[in-house]
């Protein structure tokens, strides 16, 4: 039987208990969590990141698709002719290939994410990877993020979750996935060399896109009430002009690439000097001298240690790990620890683990569909060969992997996840799991191993089940298992 505090550690801080966890966690759940952080500092991989290779391929396929579309356009009959000509097939094939390429990567990367989560021996760290991946969310409903989102999480988020927040922030917002998602690749200073060239030679106005700058301030750092203005957003957007991706630019920046902008490493972060807005900029009352790519890093360094950022991050962490409406005192304490330790996240997590509030209320959080599915598989203690059903379930339950639909990421309160339809889908998932598992597991014993103490109603319901499989389904659908 899992002790109450061990159940909180495994289910709320981790990704769901596995049958042997009572022995592994023992009598010191705080120590078990803290030890996971000790080994969490991963050196970022060296050499060319996988995302760069994928992006280069995306670009090649896009070029092929555009060429094919061009061929088709040339073959188009005069408008008065009603029936289209017999298509040569090549364009359809190029489009299919592009779609298949993106899909393959998406399936592979989401499966890898599920695999790591189900098998994680350091589930607290794994949860932190998901938490920060969601804090710095990209969404695959924008092309070609589906081929990049998982790699982004591996390359930019995972290595930094137990390090300093500034390093995490910089890695996230400089990653090509984020640059593409928030449209910074073609944002250029209105007075930059590139914009001036395009204006003179093509008569076209190109300039700022303030999306990345705004979301960094609103979502990643200060928070929406963090004390910035529209002017700060615009100035920060100027600071970030030139933060782009190497290789030939797509759509918006084609003209620039053609007139000889330096190419950089294809598919990797690249600062394009010619697109950068020259001159000093003022963000949040602080003046930044013109110095190219470093300006952006300086602003990020400042906002990372801003009191508003500390408060924003502390609130989100406390909401994720303690309660939808987190205790104000705890938030204050975490923010204070963050600032006193210059944004060292490990110190903040330790404060969170040591806080009395973290252990007071079991089952304070309603699981997201993702939490629910991963913890269900962990409770089975089998590594499934086919992980596609997880993605299928999450899509049905309204949490398609890496698809929050907005840079704010998935919401983190019960009201967003406990709707009737979503509940029905969890029961459907539980029913299917029960059918598959049959009589291989004693559901009542398993309930004790993964949930610890459960209510008398749940105990009776499982005990009275028609068969073991149905009992296991009732375990997964129980009020206790729906929460963490």
């Amino acid at each position: 039987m899992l002790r109450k505090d061990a159940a909180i550690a495994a289910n709320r801080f981790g990704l769901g208990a596995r049958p042997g966890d009572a022995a592994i966690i023992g009598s010191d759940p705080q120590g078990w969590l803290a030890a996971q952080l000790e080994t969490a500092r991963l050196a970022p991989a060296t050499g060319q990141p996988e995302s760069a290779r994928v992006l280069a391929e995306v670009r090649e396929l896009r070029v092929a698709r555009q060429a094919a579309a061009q061929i088709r356009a040339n073959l188009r009959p005069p408008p008065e002719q009603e029936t289209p000509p017999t298509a040569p097939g090549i364009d359809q094939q190029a489009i299919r290939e592009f779609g298949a390429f993106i899909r393959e990567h998406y399936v592979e990367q989401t499966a890898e994410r599920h695999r790591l989560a189900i098998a994680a021996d350091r589930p607290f760290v794994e949860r932190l990877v998901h938490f920060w991946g969601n804090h710095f969310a990209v969404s695959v409903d924008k092309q070609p993020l589906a081929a990049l989102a998982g790699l982004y999480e591996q390359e930019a988020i995972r290595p930094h979750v137990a390090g300093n927040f500034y390093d995490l922030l910089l890695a996230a917002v400089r990653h090509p996935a984020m640059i593409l998602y928030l449209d910074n690749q073609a944002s250029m200073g209105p007075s930059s060399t590139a914009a001036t060239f395009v204006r003179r030679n093509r008569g076209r106005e190109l300039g700022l896109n303030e999306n990345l700058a705004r979301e960094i301030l609103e979502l990643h750092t200060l928070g929406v009430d963090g004390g910035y203005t529209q002017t700060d957003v615009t100035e920060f957007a100027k600071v970030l002009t030139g933060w782009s991706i190497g290789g030939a630019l797509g759509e918006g920046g084609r003209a620039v690439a053609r007139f000889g902008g330096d190419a950089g490493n294809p598919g990797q972060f690249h600062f394009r000097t010619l697109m950068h807005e020259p001159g000093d900029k003022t963000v949040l009352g602080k003046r930044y001298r013109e110095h190219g790519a470093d300006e952006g890093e300086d602003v990020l360094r400042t906002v990372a240690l801003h009191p508003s950022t500390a408060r924003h991050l502390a609130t989100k962490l406390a909401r994720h790990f303690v309660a939808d409406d987190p205790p104000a005192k705890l938030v204050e304490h975490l923010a204070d620890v963050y600032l006193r330790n210059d944004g060292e996240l490990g110190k903040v997590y330790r404060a969170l683990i040591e806080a009395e509030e973290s252990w007071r209320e079991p089952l304070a959080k309603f699981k997201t569909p993702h939490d629910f599915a991963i913890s269900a598989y962990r409770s089975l203690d089998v590594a499934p060969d086919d992980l596609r059903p997880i993605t299928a379930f999450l899509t049905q339950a309204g949490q398609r992997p890496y698809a929050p639909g907005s840079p704010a990421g998935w919401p983190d309160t019960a009201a967003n996840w406990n709707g009737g339809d979503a509940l029905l889908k969890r029961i459907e998932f539980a029913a299917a799991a029960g059918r598959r598992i049959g009589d291989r597991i004693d559901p009542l014993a398993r309930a004790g191993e993964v949930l610890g103490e459960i209510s008398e109603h749940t105990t009776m319901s499982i005990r009275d089940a028609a068969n073991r499989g149905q009992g296991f389904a009732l375990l997964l659908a129980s009020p206790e298992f729906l929460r963490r």
Partner: protein
Amino acid sequence: MTTRRSLLATGATLTLLAPFARLAAAAPNPDARLLLIILRGALDGLAAVPPYADPAYTKLRGPIALSKPGSEGGVLDLDGTFGLHPALTNLHAMYRAREALVLHATATPYRDRSHFDAQNVLEAGSVAPSGANGGWLNRALSALDDAGDAREAVALADSVPLVLRGELAVSSWAPSRLPVPGDDLLVRVRQLYWAADPALAQTLYDALEVRAIVGDTSEQRMDGRAGLSIAPLASAAARILASPDGPRIAVLDAGGWDTHANQGGAQGPLAQRLRGLDDGLEMLKRELGAHWRETTVLVVTEFGRAAAVNGTRGTDHGTAGCAFLVGGAVAGGRVLGDWPGLAARDLYEGRDLRATTDLRALFKAVLHERFGVGEAALARTVFPASDAVEPLEGLTA
């Protein structure tokens, strides 16, 4: 340079709003249906309803400006001043049949350009973010319930969006392709919930009720979140709203309107989204059949987008935009609003279409005229501290 007044003079059919101090008592209509469609991500109001006669429009919009009515890819004319985006052909037909009206230069009281706070204000019906518990539609239903007029509502989503959250239990429905659990298991789960967690039990009960109305959709391709067309969800909404004893009020979410880059003009990504919305409205009208007469559809978004095209042929976050009121119950064929103009000095903070009508005035009008929600409840509980926001008048037939 056109001033606000001279544009009004040229746009002869632009309807001035004349809210009355006191509302006529409206009789609650038991058959009234309401569908609220929330376009998340901020619909570009100047692309959906371009003010093509405003002299500043074409220059501000540059490469994404739509051309005048009658030209290739031109806007669909509404009243000589405003047009509809060429993708909105069905909506245009409804407008001409006096079943659709446009409210332009409208916004919630929120002014700070964050999607998430703006959606919170839009749905909470408050003055500022997190300014109210739950959503205005749930509070309106509670007010009716208090007056002995109980009505059910449903969200066409996996979970209930904020606008429908609150005291009154509300159900949700979304397409499913998962195998249906056996009846025996469902009975056991329901028993367990009734004993151990009554709130969960109620939630499950409501979900099963709605699913029974819509029927099995496992064969249909439905993906409201990722797909471009809202037609499948609109079709489910029609079935729910047309069912004899089913909910009369539904909310449908449609995302993907955040067009920061390469949004396109007459063709392109935004045009595709608009076509998806347009298909959905047509599908709804067709499937509601005779009930269309009783139906009001509100189409709203959290804010408009900046007046000028940005440096990457998209539009950044702005302030005022447009809203649509559609349905057989609407006194349509009009563009409402007090047009502030797009000249530089008329723009809000020098960059956005200025808001001249509070969106809550539109919400109040629908709730009052169609459902008989009282004036006092509207001003105090449904939309807290909104005495100063007069409901619009005469929007429905």
